[in-house]
């Protein structure tokens, strides 16, 4: 089914029990079908003679007839919310937008393979209608939409359009991956996360080791802000590098703190997309 170069699938485990009548891959809220045993109910409630639980019926002192119920398997919808502000143009060890594309492609593949829907929303200062994909189980369409991210232009100076994306996500809970470098003001992060609080949100922090560990120990660097915050000349030296890295660590810690009330802890996606690492993150948080 999957080509060998596709790499590993992202395995996720929704935090909630999805409802709905469609058959999917996740433990659903409702009972029905041939799944994992859920509970026994009275025959009067579920008059299904094929699933009478004889052992439970005999154990019942009131001589009622018990029927086994099984968990329904339901699909979820996964959405990738991509921040397309200008800082996503950054190219260090890896192309930041390339990383986002790799992630989206893997998620599109992983989701559609198990019958989940994959949707894509991108936003810079405004919501990007051209890249919008409502959740679909159509695998080719999902993969195509994911690939389009790689060719997108990032020009905006903010990611305010994500608020519109959050509005469009209203409804049943969804599995949302918020892909960004989170170079936002803290207030903006909180606003977006609280707008998405209904969903199972996993922030995917795009990082580059060149931006912290890869900094040279000494040298003159003129930093040019991709989002137009101006230029700054910096004389890198061991003490400043230490402070810089300390600051990055603090930034990630702050992001983690901001995410705690609304979302899973952020997943740091640096240099190379590793589906297994994301799987581990999703299954352990």
């Amino acid at each position, binding site marked *: 089914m999957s080509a060998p170069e596709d790499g590993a699938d992202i395995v996720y485990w929704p935090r909630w029990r999805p409802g709905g009548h469609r058959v999917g891959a996740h433990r659903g809220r409702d009972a029905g079908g041939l799944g994992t045993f859920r509970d026994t109910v009275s025959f009067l409630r579920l008059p299904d003679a094929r699933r009478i639980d004889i052992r439970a019926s005999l154990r019942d002192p009131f001589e009622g007839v018990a029927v086994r119920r099984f968990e329904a398997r339901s699909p979820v919808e996964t959405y990738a919310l991509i921040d397309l502000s200008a800082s996503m143009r950054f190219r260090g060890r890896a192309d930041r937008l390339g990383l986002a594309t790799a992630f989206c492609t893997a998620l599109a593949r992983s989701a559609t393979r198990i019958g989940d829907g994959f949707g894509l929303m991108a936003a810079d200062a405004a919501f990007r209608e051209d890249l919008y994909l409502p959740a679909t189980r159509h695998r080719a369409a999902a993969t195509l939409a994911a690939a389009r991210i790689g060719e997108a232009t990032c020009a905006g100076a903010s990611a305010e359009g994500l608020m519109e994306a959050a509005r469009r996500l209203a409804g049943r809970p969804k599995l949302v991956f918020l892909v960004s470098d989170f170079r936002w003001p803290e207030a903006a992060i909180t606003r977006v996360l609280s707008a998405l609080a209904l969903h199972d949100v996993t922030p995917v922090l795009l990082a580059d080791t060149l*931006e912290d560990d890869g900094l040279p120990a000494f040298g003159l660097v003129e930093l040019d802000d991709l989002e137009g915050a101006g230029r700054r000349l910096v004389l890198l030296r061991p003490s400043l590098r230490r402070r810089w890295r300390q600051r990055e660590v603090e930034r990630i810690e702050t992001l983690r703190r901001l995410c705690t009330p609304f979302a899973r802890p952020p997943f740091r996606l640096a240099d190379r997309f590793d589906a297994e690492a994301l799987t581990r993150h999703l299954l352990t948080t």
Partner: protein
Amino acid sequence: MGAPLGSFGVATPWLLWLLPLALLPLLRSATRRTAISAVSAAPADPLSAALSAVLTGAGLLALTGLIVALAGPYRAGESVTRTGIGAQVSMLIDRSGSMNETFAGRQPSGEEESKAAASRRILGAFVGERAHDLFAVTAFSTAPMLVMPMTDRRDAVRAAISAIDRPGLDYTNVARGLGMALSQFGPAAPGVSRALLLVSDGAAVIDPRIQAQLRAEFAKVRPNLYWLFLRTKGSPSIHDKPAGEDTPQAAPERHLDLFFKSLAVPYRAFEAEGAEAVAGAVRQIEALERDPIPYTEIRPRRDLTGYAYAVAALGLLLLVLAKLAEADFLRQGARATGERAAPAGQAGAERRKAA
């Protein structure tokens, strides 16, 4: 010539229209830009901020220096009037044939020194010792010769004096020489001490009509008159009365002296019968002529291009140092990934070869 700013100017002023270019470092910098997702990621650093200001300044300095240097800056020449101790000295030097002889009245031979050579040596020293005097040199024999107008150029005066021992010729016509020497003083300036130094080894009769003219001239110029009489041994002194008739023709020296005395200007005559006596007389004159004198000093036009280039070089040096200290870490990272990719490609090639 550019419009001088004070005493400064530039040779090609239109190049200064390029000066707004010097503001370019405020817009762009020489260092390579590193696009980064957020500048705020870098912690605030006063040293870097100071360095940035310094490098911008260096850029401004380099461009300004280069443009100004190309325009060719200079400080315009000017004359400064100062006051020193000295006098306007007009020298009137006898160039008649007899000056070629020694004090003994012979042609010089061996170690001997002619009167002209001795006076050249001693007057040269006189000129050298007086810092702020103005000198004019006039020579005369039959006709007066304007050697050097009144000037403070010491070298020129010394050169003029060193020329007076060229072989002299003809006779002594002191009257016209005096006239020209007096005319060297130019218009009267208050508080300027003037001295007329006549160096001769003989005298001549002055025509009574010219005497009147000279009298008028002397009365106008009012110089201190010094007569350095280089007396040849055996020739009559200026004080000697002739044995016979006491006419100007018989004793021209004595009558010239009398004429000078009658001029009503401060007058001293020095009778010198040898080089030492001449030197002593000059020393006396030097001691007498010590009055304050305003003199002009000319500062020549000075080319400032070198300084402008030096300023530009300083700025460029700073910029080059900054360039050498530059670290392009994003490119380094890309290269590192490229190297990582390369071995995989080689491995693939080997596999293909094996197959």
